[in-house]
């Protein structure tokens, strides 16, 4: 197993606030790493530092052993890193299918070839398969902005997989998805992980979802890693319980 993502002593300070305060971890190929922690513990800031949205104040990020610290999102995207955002981010005026085509098109051929090639960049088939897998086929042609919150959340996640990414960072994918959908959503993510051979890092508050989806869980509190291990062990770790209850 090779290490796909590694953070080495990452720091991110906002004025006096140490949002991320010396975080180090590794993610191995094929893992689903869950990142948990109380609100304001620095999870999203950690994601943003890993993904080039904001540069870390200190420390390094490695992707497949290469230093990618502070690399722009677009460059990371070309290296097969994909993400979803905590707040919903689909393109409301495009149809669900068009959202998926957009998510994949920039990874196919050169820009000039795309201009003179097919309008859908040859992605309609792939987009429709993705819609089917995420149980969104019936809304394929509707503007994404008109879908229910849960459906948009699924679409948002599906978009992250369109380019066949090597590493996917999911920021609260289950938030707002209704209970009846959650089970099949989790199975879909597992299948994506197994079939697509991609590695996941998932921030999530829904403990049951994290525990049943992830192969390993890391808990962050006040910008530091306080536990890192098997889901069950982390769940029962007294410092983790303390961090949650103490806030």
């Amino acid at each position: 197993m090779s290490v796909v993502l590694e953070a080495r002593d990452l720091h991110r300070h906002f004025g006096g606030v140490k949002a991320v305060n010396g975080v180090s971890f590794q993610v191995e190929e094929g893992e689903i790493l869950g990142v948990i922690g109380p609100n304001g513990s620095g999870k999203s800031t950690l994601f943003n530092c890993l993904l080039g949205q904001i540069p870390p104040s200190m420390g390094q990020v490695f992707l497949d052993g290469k230093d990618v610290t502070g690399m722009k999102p677009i460059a990371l995207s070309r290296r097969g890193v994909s993400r979803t955002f905590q707040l919903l981010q689909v393109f409301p005026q495009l149809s669900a299918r068009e959202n998926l085509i957009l998510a994949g098109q920039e990874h196919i051929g050169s820009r000039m070839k795309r201009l003179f090639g097919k309008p859908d960049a040859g992605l309609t088939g792939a987009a429709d398969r993705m819609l089917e897998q995420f149980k969104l086929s019936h809304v394929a042609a509707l503007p994404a902005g008109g879908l229910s919150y849960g459906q948009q959340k699924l679409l948002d996640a599906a978009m992250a997989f369109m380019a066949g990414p090597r590493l996917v960072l999911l920021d609260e994918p289950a938030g707002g998805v209704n209970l009846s959908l959650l089970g099949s959503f989790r199975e879909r993510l597992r299948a994506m992980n197994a079939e697509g051979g991609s590695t996941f890092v998932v921030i999530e508050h829904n403990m049951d979802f994290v525990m049943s989806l992830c192969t390993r869980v890391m808990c962050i509190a006040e910008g530091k890693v306080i536990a890192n291990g098997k889901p069950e062990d982390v769940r029962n770790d007294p410092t983790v319980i303390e961090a949650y209850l103490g806030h």
Partner: protein
Amino acid sequence: MNHPYRVLAIALLLVLVGGVAGFGLKPYPIYLISQWAVYTISAIGLNLTLGYAGQISLAQASFVGIGAYATALLMPHGVPFGVTLVIGAAISFILGVLLGFPALRVQGHYLAFVTLALATIAFLVFRNESWLTNGTSGIDKIVRPFPFTSDLAYLWLCLGSLAIVTLGTWWLLRSPWGRAFLALRENPVRASSLGVDVRMYTLLAFAIGAALGGVSGALFAPLGQYIEPAEFALPLSFSLLLMVVVGGSGSFLGPFLGAMVAVALPEVLRSFQDYYLVIYGVMVILLLVFSPDGLVGLIERAVRRRPVAAPAEPAK
């Protein structure tokens, strides 16, 4: 109305109607239709930058000016019209790229001010650099390219150019580029996380829009056969902006309708003389209050509201 082939067909039909109507019309109406075609090309360019890619520009008139001066200055030296048109478009394209750079840093009102600055600089160059542009006296006796010397033939040249621009823009917007432009407008942060090169597409949105302004200018100069700096000052930029907004920003047919209103309204309201602009202004305000997506939005709603025999419940 959103069906891609339908909007293309309607746009080309409008062009065709203009061309056929030319047969039965006097020179002045022919001039007006030619003017419509020229403004529409320019508005299509601005619609691309503003409507689709979401980047405001108040400098579109400058590119029309660049296209017009390139043609007016180069044709007397024996450069064929087709070449002057390409040169005007190319200079505009390059300046458009430069104008795009501030947009990578500032957006909205601030971007409007930056483009306003370019528009002002361009106007000052047209007016003050007399050695090149003949200053406020302007350039007269601009000849029309053979064989499009008659009013009717020149109308067809303008409409033919509009048809080509229409087809090209339609292709562009339907391609993955069009989708990327929309992504740029709706959510640049998410777009870049999906691998959309926001920087490149912003520059392209400005450059392509500007190049169409240049094409429009190249046709503009021989149409009236006289140009002067004031024609390419801010009022034209605002007028083009109004065409896009009144027609329907971000809709394919918007510029066609917006330019039609801008050309026809002064004629229709001629008897009101000085009050014309007041009436125009009030109409624009009313339109935007009731239909923020312009005339195209208004028409779309009218078509949808029409009673249908079948269950009329639209899919939500």
